[in-house]
């Protein structure tokens, strides 16, 4: 929880303490260093989603994304198959076998 609190604190502090710059871009998208608008809002949105999910591949055995995007990112089962053979969310108890 300490790490969690620290991460959130750094992010919120950076956002709240800094002063706003020039006028906002249409649709609330990002601005270049010279204040002009970034030319590809869809790419920015997709990159942000990728960055968040690639840091949270073990948040669950599904990711919080629309089902149509399911094959776009690795899954929990993909990233650590070792856990599959251990006691835990993935493991099975093979013995005793069912009758």
């Amino acid at each position, binding site marked *: 929880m300490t790490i*969690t609190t620290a*991460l959130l604190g*750094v*992010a919120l502090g*950076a*956002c709240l303490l800094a002063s*706003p*710059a*020039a006028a906002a871009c249409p649709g*609330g998208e*990002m*601005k*270049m260093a010279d204040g*002009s608008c*970034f*030319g*590809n809002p*869809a*790419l*920015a949105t997709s*990159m*942000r989603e*990728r*960055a*968040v999910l*690639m*840091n*949270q591949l*073990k*948040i*669950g*055995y*599904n*990711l*919080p*994304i*629309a*089902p*149509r995007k*399911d094959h*776009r990112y690795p899954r929990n*089962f*993909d*990233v*650590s*198959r*070792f856990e599959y053979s*251990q*006691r*835990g*969310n*993935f*493991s*099975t*108890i*093979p*013995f*005793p*076998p*069912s009758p």
Partner: protein
Amino acid sequence: MNLTFAAAAACACACGVSASFAADLQPMPVKAAVQSIDQLWNISYNSEVRYFSWQNTRGFTTDVAPLNGRGGGTQIYAPMSLSLTGNPDPNWKLEFVARGGFVSSNQSTSGQRGYVGTAVDTQLSGTATYNGFNGFQPYVAMLINAPTGKSALYGNSRFARMDGDLVDQGTYGEGWNFGPTVGASIPLTKELLFTLSGGYTSRGAFNKEGLDVVTGLVTATDRIRNGDEASVTAALGFGRGPFSAQASGSYAMGRVSQSNEFGQFNYNRYQVGPRTTISGNASYAFNEMWSVSANGFWTHSERNQVLDITQLFLIPELFNSNSNLYRIDTGLSYRFGNGVTAGPIAGYLYRDRNGFDPVTFGFVPAKTRWSAGGVVNYNVTNKININAKLERVWLRENENPGPPPFTPLVPFLSGDAWVLAGGATVNF
């Protein structure tokens, strides 16, 4: 088939239908208010129903007696998501996603007959992005896994867990997980974007079925706590005209996983080795009709920490039992004049390791998975899209060497599966 899944399918359909009807039946004053909100918020609902039918030469898991006879199973999985995106302030962008679903799984292999029908865990995601700075865009996100699924499968229902390379849902529940992430996007040019981010996944404890040592039945309850994970990710994205590509590299470090054993509540079981993941995707539109896309990833993990011979201390395993994993999925699509888009898809997955770990008595076979099929999309209106997919999967897993003298405990295994899926996306 069962009440749980029937209710799930009805809910999935009813949600989509009622939502679209509601939009049409709003009285005028309310409609005006909704339109005003629409300028700030976009809502999207996506749901699919997927059917999997597989068979192989062994069943799953592969080392359960009797060690002969073919295995097979089916799964019906209905995931659904609701996304909300808005700009309540010109400098702020907020994105929320809620995802859940229902699954019905059945394995009917000799010696491994099991069934489960349940809701899956629910995932929640919230991301806040600040756009007020010139030259960089910070964001903070919180992801949550809510344990609405079924993590403990007592008795024979535990055999309803199946190979995640053949079906979508290989397991059905874990605990409360919380995953904060912070990061920033930095536009290098108007076409090239760099992001740097870090996250931490706190994985909560949950119940799991266990073996009752007195009765010999799987009726006991274990308490499992999987190791937390911290990670950093760097990514590059590029988009110019008909071409778009993204690539990312992540490094993750896990903490110790624990369970209740030997009278201890927090008994250290193992620690997964640090993991490197490279992933990306690319797409190109040749013209208004033809386009091609691909996405893939590679993961590599360092050696795990496992229990030593005294079962008291964690030590590095003698050799790395983690597979390197390679996966790529590709698709070619053609857009017809009537709004239908269709084309072939193909995929390849390879797990490279094949060996016996004498410390954990774990078996790590190499594995290859091929898939081929086709997809169809149709824009019913500019706010409703429906899609369907039919896919054939072929799988081959190398033999599992047994303990010394290393006779094959499980011979090589081959399997195949059909995947049929249909779904819809409704934007409000």
